């Protein structure tokens, strides 16, 4: 369907606390790196897709207007796709459809966040409507409830879940430590995670992502252009996006239907029947360790209710059967509007051998994912080194 589409360049800022530059300049840093990586000039771009978190995050609304110059979009068309946390996947999908339609040959996709200029948790308190807001708000509360729901639903032993979460935290921080762009770059042990202070039970400090400033840019090109200007493109093989009800109580968050169906759609398009075997690297959106456990099940990487066992066996650790979040994931770097797009950038870097210190040897097929909304949305993109 449509034309072939490839990632021909990616760019990330150094993520973290970036008091050294303004928000538009943060965006510019990522855009510049992506253009350099692809070896093209702004003139080559036919259109721009941008997305970020709600305006309350940094206090500037419709900030694509403010970023017009940084996005190199002056005189050009743009689209702005936003689906909360899954924005990064939604913007990428918009660019993919745009190129696949034939109405653009090269599209620049950008996501950004500068969390230190605002208050992320205050913003997230305003995602639930005013009545629900009184009972639940902010990310840790919502996701801790989800973790408890999952543990209860499958009757998972609490010690086992904690151990598996700790292994994920240690693995991710090891990836973050060697990833030059990551925000949190420290070495931690399993003991550190297990003994860390509780944020919202059962989530402890090292189970939680940071608040980061950062931006990411990805350049997409049509099959014809990609073959002409890029030695090693990362080909888009499948995309999927699903969303569910707004009110959290309306659906199970342990058997998370939007995650399951988004992944299945992408697998269908990519012709993947056994994801754990056929995929080499997975960049899963994991702002909380317990969520990664649930995602491993819902995204089809292990049987339902068995994620903790698989993680403890080391299946998803570095050198395991399926390497998960070698970049350190969202757990180490979380500029929200960019975080979902960073997953795609990292997946593309892995299959093109450009991931540097955290390269997974011989990676050919990679998986990128993001989730968002009031635990509602899941988006998936699959890339491959082969068309």
């Amino acid at each position, binding site marked *: *369907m*449509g034309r072939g589409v490839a990632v021909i360049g990616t760019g990330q800022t150094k993520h973290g606390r970036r008091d050294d530059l303004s928000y538009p300049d943060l965006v510019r840093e990522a855009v510049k790196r992506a253009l350099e990586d692809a070896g093209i000039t702004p003139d080559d771009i036919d259109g721009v897709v941008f*997305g970020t*978190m*709600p*305006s*309350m995050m940094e*206090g*500037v*609304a*419709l900030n*694509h*207007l*403010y*970023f*017009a*110059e940084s996005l190199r*979009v*002056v*005189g*050009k*068309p*743009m*689209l*702005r*796709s*936003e*689906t*909360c946390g899954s924005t990064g996947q*939604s913007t990428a*999908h*918009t660019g993919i*459809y*745009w190129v*696949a*339609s*034939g*109405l653009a040959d090269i599209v620049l996709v950008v996501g950004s966040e500068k969390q230190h200029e605002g208050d992320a948790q205050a*913003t*997230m308190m*305003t*995602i639930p*409507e*005013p009545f629900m807001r009184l009972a639940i708000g902010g990310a840790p509360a919502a996701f801790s409830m989800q973790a408890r729901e999952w543990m209860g639903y499958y009757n998972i032993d609490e010690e086992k879940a904690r151990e598996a979460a700790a292994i994920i935290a240690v693995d991710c921080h090891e990836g973050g430590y060697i990833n030059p762009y990551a925000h949190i770059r420290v070495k931690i042990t399993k003991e550190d995670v297990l003994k860390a202070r509780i944020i919202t039970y059962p989530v402890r400090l090292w189970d939680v992502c940071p608040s980061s400033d950062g931006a990411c840019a990805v350049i997409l090109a049509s099959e014809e252009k990609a073959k002409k200007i890029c030695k090693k493109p990362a080909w888009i093989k499948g995309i*999927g*996006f*699903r*969303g*569910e*009800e*707004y009110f959290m109580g309306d659906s199970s968050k342990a058997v998370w*239907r*939007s995650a399951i*169906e988004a992944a299945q*759609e992408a697998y269908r398009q990519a012709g993947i029947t056994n994801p754990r075997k056929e995929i080499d690297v997975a960049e899963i959106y994991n702002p909380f360790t317990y969520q990664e456990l649930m995602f491993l099940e819902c995204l089809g990487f292990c049987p339902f209710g068995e994620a903790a066992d698989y993680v403890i066996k080391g299946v998803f650790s570095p050198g395991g059967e399926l390497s998960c979040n070698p970049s350190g994931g969202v757990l180490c770097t979380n500029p929200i509007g960019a975080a979902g797009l960073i997953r795609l950038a990292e997946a593309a870097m892995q299959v093109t051998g450009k991931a540097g210190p955290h390269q997974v040897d011989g990676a050919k097929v990679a998986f990128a994912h993001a989730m*968002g*909304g*009031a635990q*509602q*949305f899941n988006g998936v993109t699959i890339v491959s080194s082969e068309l």
Partner: protein
Amino acid sequence: MRRVAIVDVAQSSGVESSLNLMEFTYRTVKELLDKVGLRRVDVDTYIGASSDIFHSGMSCANAFDFDSIGAFMKPASRQEADSMWAFYYGCLRIISGHHDTAMVVGLIKGSENAENDTITSCFADPFYLRPLGIQETTAAAMQMRLYMDRYGITEEQCAQVVVKNLGNALYNPYAHIKKRVTVEDVMNSERICDPLKAMECAPKSEGVCAILLASEDRAKKLTKRPVWFLGYGSAMDTFYLGDRDLLDTKLKIAGAKAYKMAGINDPRKEIGVAELCESYAYQELLWCEELGFCAPGEGGKMIEMGITGINGDFPVNPSGGVLAMNPYVSRGLYRIAECFLQIKGRAGEHQVKKRVKRALAHSAHGFAGQCHTVVILGS
């Protein structure tokens, strides 16, 4: 390129509604589904258009409106800022061959959020523009002053746009502001930001507009006379007002791209109706010039001669335009819906006299029209 058509449209009224946003939205979406005879699950993909800043104090707009646009467990997405982008995204999904039908829904409940300019002042950066009090109205006042100075456009000519558009709105069942006014009424209304008068500024309105798109094959099965998507152009300008000539906007680029795609050489002759986004009265005149409907500086004469009247040679905003109905984010889709109705001859009392083969819909947002988008439809 795969052809894309509009199968049908549904609109809500712009008048304040007691329904909450979820029900208010769902009603219009359901009306369209019923009209076309499809179930929610029959539509391949859903694209919403909503904006966080216009979302009644709630963040992540589409988290709340996702169920009500019908998108549950469907391939779906959302555009922020301008619903015309959502229309384009729906078209792209069909042209790419991934989907055959797309529901595009723009939604906003103006009665539930702050004054327009409280919101538009948040478009300004916090360091340079916001402390100066720049928002859409103050930026527009500067643009209007420059327009009058450079081309000798008079305040009365600008006021005539209000008279014409509110007059048209009297016959549009969905319009928000319905009032028969004279040039004197407009001239005597409060000067809120010199030279802009209160009646020359768009109100804030409710507005849910739903449009069903389909590929050629599907469209022909769903309707006898589809209206075709022929052209699209959009362009962004620089952010700071001082970096631009406010009378040389990127609408020229957006229009030229749309004309090229639709194969239009002489817009004034080949287009039957134009629906423009005139958040401020003078902008209709300026946009007419930039879209090539008349020569630069001739916008004033065009309205004086009655050319853009509903029975004129070149009707502009027969719906009453944005001056009569301003649901900020969805207003782009309303322009498209009106063009659809005019082409189908279904606009009722505000149907233009001559037969419309091609129509132009325009949308703009940002200070003094920083971003413009143009869509061309045809029979």
